[in-house]
């Protein structure tokens, strides 16, 4: 009896081994850049995908963010990149025109990925000349975080919706609790003060003004809207002193995390980190309509397929299955704070039950992407540096915008 069982068990193991060998799952290589708080959620998703089926095995390699694009660019140049990569939407314009990313329309169709279930804005921003070159995994817009306990202590009962409300609420918090009124980084340290550019672009867009003109050839902010936007940013630091000078990104995040700031402007990627902070009672809303309508800068992580030396349709189809699964399971990715791109995810109970997400899911409707010019990385750095300098030195709006306009136009010419 015992012997029979042993034989049976051995036989089963043998059969199992044979079937595994026979199916031979396709191994797909993949690079991701998620090293921060979102990394663990991402790895968990990839693991769940690998366990959900047995045809495809994703081999993830995470590259440190500061080196990611350097490494990726070199690999793309050598046509040596992995089968699928993560790429920020605003970087696509640096790669697509050079023909290093696969055009995906045909494969999307073959894989039966239902594009109508995607939010239109993030999907359209992955199209160039009407053709699709990447699939958006998420959007991660600029939002406003607020500390509920500090607001209550200061007697602020309403989440600010206008500039005047924001300033008076932040003042009340600063005066009555000693906390920072508005934590938004205005100085480069370990990270560049990109938040300044994101805020500036959002404040312009709230007045229906884009940062560059329609052709993306010239600066478009040295005007009344630009003055209002710059003044609002500068006043928070210089006139109302609601944001301390020399506040870098780490300080801005840490002070809010430790309950030492009333309001905080940052991307949604901090939601997960703030949730894990015990004793922090916070809320998060889309970027408020400080200067007009609601509009908020957004970034977006997309999944793109590098062009290889020889195109292997089987591998690309495997990649499409992976992309389909990842976007359909956006509720897992939403745990990191990011907003899923497929509308089918919003109705899932797993998504609805996540705290905070419903509060800012609205933001998707009012977000906009940075201008699609291959010079954006250089402009992004130059604008952030220039705004940082002007605010640090308390320049008036005219001097600040003249300098900024010259820098931007010099790069664009």
């Amino acid at each position: 009896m015992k012997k029979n069982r042993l034989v049976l068990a051995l036989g089963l193991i043998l059969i199992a081994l044979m079937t595994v060998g026979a199916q031979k799952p396709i191994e797909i290589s993949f690079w991701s850049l998620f090293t921060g708080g979102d990394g663990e959620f991402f790895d968990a998703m990839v693991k769940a995908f690998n366990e959900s089926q047995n045809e495809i095995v994703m081999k993830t390699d995470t590259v440190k963010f500061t080196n990611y694009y350097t490494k990726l660019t070199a690999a793309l140049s050598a046509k040596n990149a992995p089968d699928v990569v993560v790429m920020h939407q605003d970087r696509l314009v640096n790669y697509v025109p050079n023909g290093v990313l696969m055009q995906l329309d045909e494969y999307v169709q073959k894989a039966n990925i239902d594009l109508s279930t995607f939010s239109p804005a993030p999907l359209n921003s992955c199209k160039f000349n009407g053709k699709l070159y990447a699939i958006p995994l998420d959007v991660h817009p600029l939002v406003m975080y607020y500390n509920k306990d500090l607001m209550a202590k200061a007697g602020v009962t309403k989440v600010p919706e206008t500039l005047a409300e924001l300033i008076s609420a932040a003042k009340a918090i600063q005066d009555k609790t000693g906390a920072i009124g508005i934590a938004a980084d205005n100085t480069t340290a370990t990270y560049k003060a990109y938040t300044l550019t994101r805020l500036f672009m959002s404040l312009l867009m709230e007045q229906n003004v884009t940062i560059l003109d329609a052709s993306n050839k010239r600066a478009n902010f040295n005007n009344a809207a630009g003055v209002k936007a710059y003044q609002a940013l500068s006043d928070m630091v210089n006139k109302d002193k609601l944001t301390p000078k020399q506040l870098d990104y780490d300080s801005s995040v840490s002070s809010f995390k430790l309950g030492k700031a009333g309001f905080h402007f940052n991307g949604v990627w901090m939601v997960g980190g703030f949730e894990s902070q015990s004793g922090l009672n916070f809320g998060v809303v889309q970027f408020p309509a400080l200067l007009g309508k609601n509009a908020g800068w957004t970034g977006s992580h997309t999944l793109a397929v590098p062009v290889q030396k020889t195109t292997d349709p089987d591998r690309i189809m495997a990649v499409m299955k992976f992309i389909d699964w990842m976007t359909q399971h956006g509720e897992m990715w939403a745990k990191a704070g990011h907003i899923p791109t497929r509308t089918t995810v919003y109705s899932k109970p797993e998504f609805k039950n996540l705290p905070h997400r419903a509060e800012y899911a609205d933001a998707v409707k009012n977000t906009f992407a940075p201008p699609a010019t291959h010079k954006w990385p250089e402009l992004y750095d130059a604008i952030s540096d220039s705004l940082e300098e002007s605010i640090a030195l308390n320049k008036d709006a005219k001097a600040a915008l003249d300098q900024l306009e010259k820098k931007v136009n010099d790069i664009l010419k």
Partner: protein
Amino acid sequence: MHLAGHTKRDIILFSAPYLLVYLVFLAFPVVYGIYLSFFDWNILSGKAFVGLRNFVQAFSDEKFKSSFFHTLQFVGLSTPILIVTGFLMALISVRPTKLGKAAESIFFLPYMFSTTVVGTLWAWLLQKNFGLVNQLLQAIGLKGVGWLTDPNVAMLSIVWATLWWTAGFNMILFSAGMKQIPDEIYESARLDGAGKFVTLTRITIPLLKDTTLLVVILQIIASFKVFGQVYVMTGGGPYGTTRVLVQYVYETGFNYFKLGYASAMSMVLFVVILVISAVQLLASKDDVQ
């Protein structure tokens, strides 16, 4: 040598691995860099020949000029301190006592860390609101300093971190030189009644002349190439006031996709370092004669 038949082959064989690495990772990139500096290239598609345009552009580029100036600032601030500190460390560590041995290890230890480790470590220690240094200052009733966020202080913080990190290397060079000075010279000096200070200024320093020249040249070259610690600690900030040339070259090449222009700027730096090193070498040769 009487082994001549063997040695030639052996020399080639034994140096082949290094020569190969040297050719592939040093000689080739240098030559290719010179070539690239005359082209417009975004790394992902074809190159276009532009003659000297990249060089002309560099000299009218405000960001290039300011980055170059910040590099010069760093060279000027860091080189003397690094050399003097390395020398003082060597004086302590060459003593044949247990303390000397311990000091040698302690002084050299930071040099073994990578740039990223050193940069991250000091970035955290010097962080304005939550860094240890400012916490300590505040604990004794002083005001915190914007070590990395105040434009008047940030470059000094980078120099400090570099000093902590690399002075140990200069110490090794100096102490190797010191160990080669024969004991008899010191002994006869002692017999002649020379004090410690006189021994130092009349014997140690003059006899270390060659070592000092080597240290100075190596240090100036190293300081000109500063990048990693700046990139990690200040990101070139506040508002670009610590952006150094190699950082701008890196950003131009890999973030802004202008490989040709980045190569041209590197060539300018290359020539500057070459000229400075040549002048130093020539000047010191005259001295010896």
